[in-house]
Each structure stands twice: as C-alpha cells, then as structure tokens.
C-alpha cells in the first residue's frame, strides 16, 4: 500500500486527464515517480529551443504562460492553470521545446518522468489518444488535428446512460385507440368496409356476445381475402376475418405489447379488459401508432409535420426534435447530418406556417395567390446551421407588381409575414431582437426594393451596413418561388463585381474579433453585464469563422453554398494550397456548433454564453484548439486583401 504522500499526489493527478484515464496501479506508479518543484513569478521552467527534459509537467497551482520568442517580441501561445499538462514534447519524440515557459504566478509544478509515462502511453489507448488529439497545452503550436479531438471526446464521453430505448420518445405517450370500431359477425363485408371508411380506420374488430372479440378484419384482409379472391362483398365478415385474435391487456405495458406484436407479426393488436379473448374489447393498437410514437426518427417527425396544420401539434413535434438533437449531439453524430435534419424540420415548419397563413388570408385576398413570393431565411437558419430555436432571422421577397396592385400586395404580404411569424413563435422559436423578420415591413418587400437594399450596402459599406451584410448575405430560399431569390443573388454578384473594394471592407469586418487565446482569469470572458465571467462562443469563436467563410466564398463568386462548414469544404477545393487549413476551420466550426447546442440544451438557453469553469478539461482544451485556425485564416485574409495598406 502506498503511503500518504503518494496518495495525495495521486489524488491530485487523478482529477485531470490524461491521468484520469489511468488504472489505480498505473496512477500509483506515476504518482510515486513525481518530482515537485516550486517556481516563483518571473522564473523560467524551460526555454525555447532547450533540449527536452526527461520530464513533462502538470501544474498543481499557479499560472504559467507558454510563450514564443519571436522577432516581434514574445507572444503568448498558451496559458496554463491548475491541472494543465505541458512540456510534453519530451514525452513525444524528445524534440527541443518550441515555447518558453514563463512563470506568471508562483507555481507548484509536478514533473512526471517520461520513462514512467512512456510505457503507459504505449499500453493505454485513451492516454495515447489524449496526446494524439493535442490536448496537452502547447503541444502542437500551430494547428491541431481537430478530428482526433472529436474522436477523443467521443471516447472520453462519460457513459451517460443507455440510449438504446430512446428511439421511443416517451413510452407512456403511445396512443392506444380506445374507441374501437366493432361489428357483429353477421355484418356484410361491404357494410364493414363502409364503417371503416367512415371512421377512417384500417381495421374493424368482429365481436360476439358481451363485446368479446371473435376476429379482426383489416385493410389488407379486404384486399387479399376479398378482392383478390373474388369473394362477394355481400358475404358475412366472419368468413374473411382473421380469427382467433391475439389479445393483450392495456396494463401489460408498452414493451410487452410491442413485443407480442413483433412476435406475432401483427399490424394490429386488440386490447381487452382482462387480456384474454373472453373479455370485452377495450382498445386497439396499430403499428402506425407505434411508428408515430418513435419520436426520435427524423422521418417520423417530418412526416408528422407535413400531415398537420395544427400549431399545437407542430410545437410538440418540434419539441421532440430537440430530444432527438440532444441524442445526436451527445453521440457525436456527424454535424452535417444533424444540421441538415434540423434544417429540414425547421423548413417544413416554415412551409406549413405559410400554408396556414395563406389559407387564412385567401377569402380576403383571392387574387393574391398568383403573385410569386419567396420566404427567405437569414443568419444561422439561412446557413442551415440553426440547431436550437434561437432568434428568427427571415424576410419576405415578392415579385414586382404593377403600381396599381402595390398597395394590395403590401397589405397582403405584410399580413402573410405576420401570420407566419406568429406560427413560428407558437412553435417555440425566439423572435429576433433586431426585428429582422418577415413581419417587419422593412424586410417584406418586392424584388426591386431588395435589389436596392443590397446595392446600397455594397456601395456604402458603413459599419451598420456591414452588420446587415453578415445577416442578409446568408439568405436562403425556404419556400415559394426560389427563382426570385436566384435573381436577387445574380444582382448581388454583379454589384460586387462592380465594386471589388467592398470585399476589402468585408475583410476588415471579418478581422474585428481576434480569436481568444484560452480560458484564463478574466482574459476572455465577458467583463460585465448579466453574462459576466462567461464566454461568448457565438461572437468570439463562431462569428469570426462565419465571417471569414462568407468573405472567401464571395471573393470566389461561389453561389448557393450557405453553410459555414460546407463553405470551408468548397474553399479547400478551390484553394488546394490552403486545403488543410480550411478543413480544420470547418471541423472547428462543427465542434463549436455542437458545443453551443449542447450548452443551450443543458441550460435551456441559446447556448451563446458558456461557463468556462463548468467545462471539463477536455472540453476546454477542445475549445481552445478550435480557436487555432481562426488566427491563421485571419492572417491569410489580412494579406490577401492587403488590409495593412487598406487601413491607412
């Protein structure tokens, strides 16, 4: 048994990865070999270019900056605080240190011998993955392989319960039809079919005395046993019914009921009072009911949305979509798939909202159906990146109408926009604080006015205009006449071609937010307001990436790709020289999206503000690594658009 001192060291180490992945025996071995060193502010632990020591380090207390000494002076590359592992080059390949470790606050440093740990690195795959993913501070200075990071996070994810049964959103919600359509055995086939048609059901239970079930006739029976076999519809149903019926009782619980349906290959299961065929019928359950209760299938959700114009139902379906989203995010389902599914669901809701609004307005505006219009989603929804029901950003674009019809069109589309927004709000979407919505008259205009807006922004790129650009340039036609949106896009590119300098303004705007370095003290978090001490993931990490992607895609005159990570994908095709950086940026963006959405789901918020302290070490490091491509991209943009000259 190890002594108190070794145990104390082990207890500290075990709180932090990669030590948290060690077996007790491995941990004890490592703890036993630690050397503890105390360094005061201003001292240096190792210097840039110095040969690797036989140890790597973990910070017990204090603050250490890893700095790069460059011609311009020293540049902070990484800030280490409690639990950060650094100086690992010694462990990985014994290369000289790339950075200097500068003691910023008095620090207690634990040194772990490479010799002890190297063996663990070979044997423990999770530890190997930790280092492969670049989680240690200052490990790879320039760029991290982010895909390794994602892989690692998925491997480190705490087993948060078994999700295998989660395909059923809520088992108690499985709908059992209690009003069962029944008939007597003497009823003619034709009559039975008529009853089924009237009741709009796919089965009828044939009952004898006391409402005891004798058999069942389904749509399929009518097809195969009656029509295909040429049986007269005047005969009694008892001749074609399936008998005896398999029965169960409602209290059997969902899994038993479902299992007996699977076992008997049944599409319908009859429920009786005591579960036997010698008791009155009290319900029926169909595989369709079960299908609809599988809340976590995108197909079911979309199918459900397309088949309802009831706002209450739409809300319920959108809520279940969120459960599905959470499952996807936690299980590291590819972001492209997740975003596409959620976009599709949101788009269907918008389309249905438009149908609801049109139906409501038709009596008052019978002539307006013929005017072509297009509903545009902007911002994140426009980029197909909206996972949570955060701010609505949308607009309405309609064809130019003769002056004589303009006032009627204005009124009609205004009302249409308002109704659509009301439906969306009822479905749980949050309104746009900047009122960029189809219900706002300013953003509900005919094509010529829209062209004018864009021309104005491009010709006079004031700060305010550039802010608009960041929202409006990512528009996407969701419903209606998409050709109108295409015409607008053509116009935008023509205008930009005439005024190339606009891109320089856009570039300048994209560099406004330098990437954050890491989480330390009050360096990067909000300094005041209600989100004090929180990290604004949207404006500090995601916005710079969307801005950069938009700018570069516009500069290549690429049309029709709105999604930020798809834009980066396209860019790496267009610029093979920067392919790696672009693909890193795309991955970084996916990581940020996932992190933001999970944060939002957890705290029932927009997820925009993250509490750095509540993030685990891995999450924090992954986030830090995700910042790496931002500064590199900004540097490229700075040079490409000659911003150093431009600013003068």
């Amino acid at each position, binding site marked *: 048994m190890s*002594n108190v001192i070794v145990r104390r060291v082990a207890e500290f180490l075990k709180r932090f990865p990669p030590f948290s992945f060690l077996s007790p025996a491995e941990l004890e071995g490592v703890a036993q070999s630690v050397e503890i060193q105390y360094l005061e502010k201003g001292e240096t632990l190792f210097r840039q270019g110095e040969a690797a020591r036989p140890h790597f380090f973990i910070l017990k207390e204090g603050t250490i900056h890893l700095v790069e000494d460059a011609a311009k002076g020293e540049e902070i590359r990484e800030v280490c605080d409690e639990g950060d592992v650094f100086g690992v080059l010694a462990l990985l390949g014994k290369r000289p240190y790339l950075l200097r470790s500068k003691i910023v606050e008095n620090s207690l440093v634990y040194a772990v011998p490479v010799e002890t740990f190297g063996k663990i690195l070979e044997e423990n795959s999770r530890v190997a993955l930790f280092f492969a993913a670049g989680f240690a501070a200052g490990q790879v200075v320039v760029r991290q392989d982010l895909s390794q990071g994602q892989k690692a996070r998925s491997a480190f994810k705490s087993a948060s319960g078994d999700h295998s049964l989660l395909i059923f959103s809520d088992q108690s919600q499985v709908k059992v039809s209690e009003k069962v359509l029944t008939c007597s055995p003497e009823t003619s086939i034709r009559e039975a079919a008529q009853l089924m048609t009237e009741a709009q059901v796919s089965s009828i239970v044939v009952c004898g005395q006391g409402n005891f079930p004798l058999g069942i006739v389904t749509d399929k029976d009518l097809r195969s046993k009656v029509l295909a076999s040429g049986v007269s519809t005047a005969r009694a149903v008892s001749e074609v019914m399936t008998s005896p019926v398999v029965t169960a009782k409602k209290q059997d619980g969902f899994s038993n009921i479902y299992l007996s349906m699977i076992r008997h290959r049944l599409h319908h299961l009859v429920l009786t009072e005591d579960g036997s065929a010698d008791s009155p019928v009290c319900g029926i359950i169909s595989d369709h009911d079960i299908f609809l209760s599988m809340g976590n299938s995108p197909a079911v959700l979309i199918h459900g949305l397309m088949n309802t114009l009831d706002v209450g139902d739409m809300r319920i379906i959108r809520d279940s979509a969120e459960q599905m989203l959470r499952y996807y995010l936690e299980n590291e389902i590819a972001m492209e798939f997740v975003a596409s599914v959620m976009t599709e669901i949101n788009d269907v809701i918008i389309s249905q909202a438009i149908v609801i609004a049109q139906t409501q307005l038709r009596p008052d505006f019978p002539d307006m159906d013929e005017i072509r219009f297009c509903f545009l989603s902007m911002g994140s929804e426009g980029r197909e990146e909206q996972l949570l029901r955060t701010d609505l950003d949308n607009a309405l674009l309609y064809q130019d109408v003769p002056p004589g019809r303009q006032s009627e069109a204005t009124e009609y589309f205004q009302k249409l926009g308002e109704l659509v927004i009301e439906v969306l709000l009822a479905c749980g979407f949050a309104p746009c604080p900047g009122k960029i919505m189809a219900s706002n008259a300013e953003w509900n205009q005919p094509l010529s006015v829209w062209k004018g807006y864009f021309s104005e922004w491009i010709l006079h790129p004031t700060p305010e205009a550039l802010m608009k650009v960041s929202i409006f340039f990512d528009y996407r036609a969701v419903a209606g006449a998409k050709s109108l949106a295409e015409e607008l896009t053509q116009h935008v590119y023509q205008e930009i071609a005439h005024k190339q300098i606009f891109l320089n303004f856009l570039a300048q705007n994209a560099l406004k937010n330098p990437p954050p370095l890491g989480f330390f003290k009050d360096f990067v978090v909000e300094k005041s307001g209600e989100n004090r001490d929180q990290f604004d993931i949207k404006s500090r990490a995601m916005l710079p990436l969307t801005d950069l992607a938009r700018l570069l895609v516009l500069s290549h005159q690429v049309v029709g790709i709105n999604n930020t990570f798809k834009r980066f994908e396209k860019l790496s095709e267009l610029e093979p020289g920067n392919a790696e950086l672009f693909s890193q940026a795309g991955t970084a963006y996916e990581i940020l999206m996932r992190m933001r959405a999970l944060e939002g789901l957890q705290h029932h918020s927009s997820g925009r503000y993250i509490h750095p302290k509540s993030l685990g070490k891995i999450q924090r490091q992954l986030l830090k690594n995700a910042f790496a491509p931002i500064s590199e991209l900004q540097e490229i943009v700075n040079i490409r658009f000659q911003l150093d000259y431009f600013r003068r």
Partner: protein
Amino acid sequence: MSWWKFWKAKPAQRDFVSEFLRANEEAIAGARALEQLRFTVLDTETSGLDPRKDSILSFGAVKVSGMKIQVSSAVEWYPESPNNGGKTAPIHGLVGIPNPIAAEDFAKQVLAYVGNSIIVGHHIGFDLEILGKQLGFFGLERLPNPVLDTLSLAIRLEHGPHADRSRIHLESYSLDSLCARYGIETEDRHTAAGDAFLTAQLLLKLLKKCRQKGILNLKDLLKNY
C-alpha cells in the same frame, strides 16, 4: 569512572550505526549551493510529549534534492512501541497498525534513509530528541547531520536574523499557520507522512525566499545568530 556511570554504560555501537557515522564523517561543504543540497524532511507522531516516557508511533519522511520533492522517496513507517494504542492514538487514528517494525529494524531503516543528508522538520527539536532516544539503544549518541528547523527558518526570513523570539507570536509559526500563509493545502494533518509532506512543501517555498534574501549556500542557511 564512577559506579553509576558504569551501570548506565552506553550500549555498544552496532555495525549499522558505525557505518552511518562513517558516512557522516565528511562534513558537507558550507559553500555548497542550495540547489545541490540533499534534505530529509521528517516528522514523527508520538505516544505523548515526554521524550523520556513516550515513543514514536509513526515516522514519515520525504527527500528534497535539487530543490524538488522526490515523491519516490516518501516513506511511512510504524515502529514497534510499548506505547502503541496509548492516549494520543485515537487523535492520530493510529489504532491497530498492521505490520509494526521491530525497534532495531526501524533504527537501521531510519539511519540508512537519512544518510548524510540535512535533516529538516518543523519544530524538529522534539522529533530529534525522541528519535535520539530510540537510536541511543543501538549506540548512537546523537545524529551528526546538519539540522534545519523550518519554524526557525520562517521566523528568520520574516523577521530578520536577530529577531527577538520572546516578542514573536509563536502561534503564527505553527505548521498550520505557515501552511495557510504560504498557500499550502493541509489535508493530512496529524499523520507523520502528511506533516512531512507539508513541511517539505514549506521548505521549497522558504528556500526560494532564502535565495531572494541572499542565502545561497549551506553555510548561510545554517548560520546561527
């Protein structure tokens, strides 16, 4: 030679004691830099506060060399003692020690461990007295090693070399107070090894302070005023 001295004759010096003394014959150079010094930081838990009657229940120690705590050197020993289970035992939680070490083996291990390093402890005088008694049975009159008391060192660093001890509030130089002042987490108080570990961390911090005050080598460090 008077009869009572003959009666209280010194026990014969055992081989392991002689060996230990030989290793300590050569004094450590006074000019040796702090970074080159080897320290043994130790603490004992005893059955009571009277060195004549009480004995060591547990012994914890760790080495500091190159200004680094060598966790690999940490030891925690429980010597055989007539006082085991005595009155302080419940406080220290030392009831029913599994494998007590026989007195002679304990003495052997301690001397082999300490070697010719500098002995460090907090309020070390008491520990040395009671340890000395136990080692005395095997023919060691007194430990020849240089001794450094972190309590005295802290007072010297904070109040200067000529501080008047009578005017210093000794309470604020207890291990607990110093740990609080120097930002050392205290979780394992009242186990010998736990206290030795705390004392070792305190030593690291005090040694840094020494360097700032121009105390750079052993001679400076052990200077008595």
